[in-house]
């Protein structure tokens, strides 16, 4: 799959025409990582948006286990998925860490030029932001369900 095809198959840029995808692709670059390499750290500025082209990236958050902080993986994402969507949404801070779960290839889009293009090209902007809203909405539903299940467990344990 070419980088343009990878982009058009991705959750963020699905729906763009080939010409529109080429315009976005001009802003991006490919980044290859070895297994275990850090993509980004929690708390860092989200200055780049990534699309996984090949391989798998693990998302992790810090948990204190036996008295020491550890990065605990809670999700692995594969080709077509977007990473660091905080780059498109203020305050542009990363709320988790990511590391390469396998050797992987990412498409990297710097924030400012990408936001400028989305603003200058309303159709590209609309498609990308609609896709972003769908992705964020789905993640919100997942998080809500996970949280409610945890609350349910706590209630069942406390009030037997």
């Amino acid at each position: 799959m070419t980088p343009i095809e990878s982009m058009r198959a991705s959750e963020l840029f699905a729906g763009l025409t080939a010409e529109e995808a080429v315009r976005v692709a001009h802003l991006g670059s490919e980044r290859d990582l070895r297994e275990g390499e850090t993509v980004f750290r929690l708390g860092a500025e989200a200055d780049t948006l990534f699309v996984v082209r090949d391989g798998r990236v693990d998302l992790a958050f810090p948990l204190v286990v036996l008295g020491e902080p550890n990065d605990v993986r809670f999700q692995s994402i594969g080709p077509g998925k977007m990473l660091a969507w905080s780059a498109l949404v203020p305050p542009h801070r990363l709320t988790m860490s990511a590391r390469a779960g396998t050797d992987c290839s990412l498409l990297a889009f710097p924030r400012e030029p990408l936001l400028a293009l989305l603003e200058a090209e309303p159709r590209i902007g609309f498609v990308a932001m609609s896709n972003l809203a769908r992705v964020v909405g789905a993640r919100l539903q997942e998080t809500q369900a996970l949280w409610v299940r945890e609350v349910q467990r706590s209630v069942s344990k406390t009030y037997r």
Partner: protein
Amino acid sequence: MAALGLVLGAVLFAGMTVMLWVGYSEAEKAREEEPLRAEPLQAAARDGDRCLLCDQPLRRRVTRTEVVDRLEREIGIETAAVMRALQQPSVENLARLYDA
């Protein structure tokens, strides 16, 4: 006087004989018990996860890596269950979504 010396000698001899017998018996008893006490130690040597005294399996303290692995596995199972329910949002699936 000679009779008194004879009696004392006999008493001393008898006492020493008793002491020797008791000492020998104790040593013999200890030697007989030795294999019984050695068995748990041998068992422990075979398997480092057993108590040296009672030969019961030790309740080993889990390592941090083991806890993290377990957490990641459990989170993965939980997340997969939620995502499955959300991908097929039928009334039944959504009703089960919050079942823990």
